[in-house]
C-alpha cells in the first residue's frame, strides 16, 4: 500500500510539473464559465431590469414634471380665474335660493308677473363633496386620467313649475331670459295660452305661460392619483365657457346673518335668542 501511494503521488507531481499550463487553462476555463453564468449573465439581467425601472421612473418623472408645470399654468389661466362663474352656473349644491332670487330678478326685468310657483327641493345638499379629492396611488387605477366613480351621477336636477302672466312681449322676454340665467336652467315643458280682454275700446292680448324648469347642480366626486395627467379644456368646452360668460349676472349673495324682524323661534331651542 505505501508503494502504491508513493507511485500515485509521483504521477500527480509529474502531471502537475509537466502539464501545469493545461491545468491552469482548465482552471481558467472553469473560472470563465463560472463568471459568465454567475456574474456577467446576472449583471446583464440586472442591467436590463434597472434600465426598465429607469425608463418607467423617467416616464413618471416626465408625467409629474408636466403636471407640475400644468398646475403652474392653471394658476395664471384666464378661464380658471373665472372659476366662480362656472360654480355659479353649475353649483355643487341644490341652488334653491339662487334660482328663486334670479327668477324674481328676470320677472322684474321682463315685467311679467309670476302667478304661481311650485318647487319641491327635497333634501338640500351640502358642499361637502366639493373638496372630496381622494388621492389614490394604486396601480389598478388608470394613470393617465382622473377617474370617476361610475355608479355616481354627474349632475342632478331640481324641478320647478311656474305660471307667468303678462303681455306677449313680456312673456317672450321672460322665456328668452330664463335659459340664460344662473344656475343652468332649461325649459322642459311649456304651455302658452292667450286671452283677450277689452279695456274701453282697446283690445288687450294677455298670455299665460305654464313652464316646467329643470335647474342643474353638480353631484360628482372625483378621485385622482398624484401622477395622473390633468384634463385640458377642449374647444367645445371653451365655447360653452364663453357662452356662460354672457349669462345674466346674478346679484344673489349668500345670506350671512339672521335678522330679528319679529322672528319666532320655531324650534324652541332653550336659551336661544335672536340678536
Amino acid at each position, binding site marked *: 500500500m505505501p508503494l502504491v501511494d508513493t507511485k500515485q503521488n509521483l504521477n500527480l507531481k509529474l502531471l502537475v510539473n509537466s502539464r501545469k499550463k493545461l491545468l491552469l487553462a482548465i482552471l481558467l476555463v472553469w473560472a470563465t464559465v463560472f463568471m459568465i453564468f454567475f456574474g456577467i449573465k446576472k449583471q446583464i439581467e440586472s442591467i436590463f431590469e434597472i434600465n426598465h425601472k429607469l425608463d418607467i421612473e423617467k416616464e413618471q418623472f416626465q408625467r409629474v414634471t408636466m403636471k407640475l408645470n400644468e398646475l403652474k399654468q392653471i394658476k395664471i389661466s384666464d378661464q380658471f380665474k373665472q372659476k366662480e362663474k362656472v360654480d355659479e352656473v353649475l353649483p355643487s349644491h341644490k341652488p334653491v335660493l339662487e334660482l328663486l332670487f334670479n327668477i324674481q330678478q328676470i320677472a322684474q326685468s321682463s315685467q311679467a308677473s309670476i302667478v304661481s310657483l311650485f318647487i319641491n327641493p327635497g333634501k338640500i345638499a351640502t358642499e361637502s363633496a366639493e373638496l372630496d379629492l381622494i388621492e389614490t396611488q394604486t396601480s389598478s387605477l388608470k394613470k393617465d386620467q382622473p377617474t370617476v366613480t361610475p355608479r355616481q351621477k354627474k349632475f342632478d336636477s331640481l324641478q320647478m313649475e311656474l305660471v307667468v302672466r303678462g303681455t306677449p312681449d313680456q312673456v317672450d322676454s321672460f322665456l328668452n331670459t330664463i335659459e340664460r340665467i344662473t344656475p343652468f336652467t332649461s325649459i322642459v315643458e311649456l304651455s302658452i295660452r292667450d286671452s283677450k280682454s277689452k279695456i274701453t275700446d282697446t283690445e288687450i292680448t294677455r298670455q299665460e305661460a305654464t313652464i316646467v324648469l329643470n335647474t342643474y347642480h353638480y353631484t360628482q366626486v372625483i378621485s385622482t392619483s398624484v401622477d395622473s395627467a390633468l384634463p385640458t379644456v377642449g374647444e367645445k368646452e371653451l*365655447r360653452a365657457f364663453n357662452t356662460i360668460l354672457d349669462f345674466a349676472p346674478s346679484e344673489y349673495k349668500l345670506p350671512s346673518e339672521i335678522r330679528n324682524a319679529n322672528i319666532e323661534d320655531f324650534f324652541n331651542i332653550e336659551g336661544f335668542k335672536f340678536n
Partner: protein
Amino acid sequence: MIEINFLSQQNKKITSQQKSDRVYFLYAFVACAICTTILVLTLAVSLYLNFRLKRVQAQVVSAKQQIDSERSLEANYLFFINKLTIIRELFDQRAEKQIAITFFTDLFGPDVKISGINYNMETGILSLLVTSPHIFITEHAFEVLEKPEVKEQFTSLTKTNLIRNGEGEYSFTLTITFGEEFESEALIIEEEY
C-alpha cells in the same frame, strides 16, 4: 560508452504537449481576461444605472411632494373641468331642442304658433304643440311637414292628437326624437353656442 536515451520520444511528446498546453492556457487566459473585463464593465454600468435610478426616484418623490402641496388647486381645477364638460353636455342637449323649435317656427311661418313644448333631455324626445287659427293653415302645415327636405332632416317625425278647440283653433302634437339613430342634418349644435 554509448548513452542511449530511452525517453527521447517521451521527452519530445512532453515538450509538444507543453507547447500546446501553453497555447490552451493563452486562449483560456485571454477568454478569462475578456470575461473579467466584461464583468467589471457590467458592474460599473449596473452601479451607474442604480445611481441614476435613485436620483430619478428622488426627483419623482420631490415633484410628487410639490404636486401634493397643490392638492387643493388640482381639486378645484378638476371640478372646474368636470363642471365645464357637464355644462357643454347640457348645452348640446338643450341645443337640439332650441334648433328644432327655431327650424319649425321658420318652416311654418307666422300664422302657426308653437304653443306647447315638452322636452325630455334624457331620452331626447321633443313634443311640440302646434296651433293654427284655421284648418287651411293646419293643412298647409301638414303639407310642409311632408316635404322631403324636412323628412331628410328629421327622420323621426310623428304627428298626433289633432284637436279643434272652442275658439276654432286647430292644434296637433309634433314629436321629434333626437339621438344617434335619429341624426338630423339640421342639428349643427356647435353653432348654437
